[in-house]
């Protein structure tokens, strides 16, 4: 009894000693890592401090503000331009997430599990378009949307960004790994194709749909060049574009930083709630 009890204790002691030895060699590395981490987040911290400083009063970096206030934030939230831009960004990102998840998972299912003429050629053409940077086709895409009267409309903003080859590729790769028997069994039971998709494909791909949804949200929420050229008035201007129309010459720095701070809140929410998810999916899929 005493022997069996003392063994784990001795083992725990050895582990602790090993950990202490390890700590002795790695603490300078840990200190360096801590320093780099603090440096990396410091621009955000500075942004929030300025955003919370009373407007027009001395603040970082001259001195630490005497008091903090939410005045700037409430002022920003109450301004009509900012509210409209935020709503537009929500629409741009939200609608895109729903439609891309739906269309990409449907196409991914067909590319992975269906046989139809031209399947391979089509799939490789989709992949090849990844090599064409969007910026190289910016002009013709704009001319096309303009000729369809889509400039400064929501459909003109959203629809051209829905052709997302990364999403289709990811869904196809994931569904390829699901066993065929699942789909065959459902079909033998007489389920329609749409039912198979809706009751088998969608539930089974939920984890990858969630990951993809987060990425599509971030891509669209942070997107700039396309919303810049196509959203020409406040009616369709997104938050990123709206922020660039605020100039420091006319605006106090604390108000500008408040606008920036509010715009980043959804990204921070996604980050704090889903960090582990994001980190793992980048490591596994290389989604960027």
């Amino acid at each position, binding site marked *: 009894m005493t022997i069996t009890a003392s063994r784990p204790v001795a083992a725990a002691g050895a582990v602790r000693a090993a950990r202490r030895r390890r*700590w002795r060699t*790695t*603490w300078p*590395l*840990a200190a360096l*890592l801590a320093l*780099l981490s*603090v440096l*990396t*987040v410091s*621009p955000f911290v*500075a942004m929030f401090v300025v955003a919370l400083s009373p407007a027009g009063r001395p603040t970082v*970096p*001259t001195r630490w503000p005497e008091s903090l206030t939410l005045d700037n934030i409430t002022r920003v939230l109450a301004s009509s331009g900012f509210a409209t831009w935020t709503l537009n960004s929500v629409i741009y990102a939200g609608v895109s997430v729903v439609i891309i998840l739906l*269309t990409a998972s*449907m*196409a991914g299912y*067909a590319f992975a599990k*269906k*046989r*139809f*003429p031209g399947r391979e050629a*089509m799939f490789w053409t*989709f992949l090849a*378009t990844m090599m*064409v*940077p969007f*910026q*190289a*086709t*910016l*002009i*013709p895409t704009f*001319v*096309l949307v303009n*000729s369809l009267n889509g400039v400064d409309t929501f459909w003109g903003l959203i629809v*051209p960004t*829905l*052709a997302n*080859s990364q999403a*289709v590729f990811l869904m196809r790769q994931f569904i390829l790994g699901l066993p065929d028997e699942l789909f065959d069994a459902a079909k033998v039971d007489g389920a329609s*194709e749409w039912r198979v*998709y809706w009751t088998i494909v969608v539930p089974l791909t939920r984890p990858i749909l969630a990951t993809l949804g987060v990425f599509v949200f*971030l891509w669209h*929420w*942070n*997107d*700039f060049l396309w919303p810049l*050229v196509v959203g020409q008035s406040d009616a369709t201007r997104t938050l*990123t574009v709206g922020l660039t129309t605020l100039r420091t010459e006319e605006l106090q720095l604390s108000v*500008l*930083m408040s606008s*920036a701070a509010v715009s*980043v809140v959804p990204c921070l929410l*996604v*980050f704090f709630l889903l*960090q582990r998810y*994001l*980190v793992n999916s980048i*490591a596994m899929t290389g989604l960027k």
Partner: protein
Amino acid sequence: MRHRLRDPVTGLLFVLPVLVLFLIFRIFPSLGAAGMSLTNWNIGGEWDFIGADNYARLLDDVNFWLSLRVTLVYAAVYVPLTLLVALGTALLLHQVVFMRGLFRGMLFLPYVTSFVLAGIIWRWIYEFDGLINGLLAKADLGPVAFLEQSAVVLPALAVVSVWKGFGYSMLILLAGLKSIPSSYLEAATVDGAGAWQRFRRITLPLLKPTIFFVLVIETISAFQTFDTIYVMTGGGPARATYTLIYGIYDHGFRSFDFGYAATWGMVLFAIVLVVSLVQRRFLDRGNT
């Protein structure tokens, strides 16, 4: 048998939404870009076929060559710097156990935000009465005109993009480090290899494919940098940050010279294509 007959149709139906989106908004504009570069397309939608005139104009355009130089210099600063920071932080995260999750999160945080936000924060950080010059003033140094001097502005912009983007490459490299069997490193330690030797002879060679992937991805993103330039410098001072993408935007949406802007886009496409093909060649060689 019935299923097999039904398959071609249902497969096509499931792909149809994505197919239509791709044909109209990816493939048509990709071909359109090549076509438009052979015309003098303008804002009114009028155009004449002018053959290779735009390309001849491009070769004679001092600003084009300047812009190509700016783009290459920017990439030459950005790519090694981002690899260095990403590899350094990945190695530290791999070594240090202490609060690893927290540090990884802090280092990754800028990645989920937008380049526009990064531009707004860092424009203030670099300003005469901004964060860095404010801190320098406390030490009776400076001020440094980060965004007003041609020699300093490109590295200054590269730092912003590195800060915003290195978290992605860090995670990719970290995953690569984790995939190296620890037995290799332990065996080397037993054989008396020091930390540097282990890194140089084992970690680095085994990490080479991952490093190569990161280099390609980051080179492509270097050529696509637009948002920070738009927010922070507007291509200046004296065209010192007038990159290829900025040229596309400037000719397209300031001069409305769509045909010529599309020609600039073709150059961007050619560069990205070459980088992607080099990547594929290397990957193919790695597999055989």
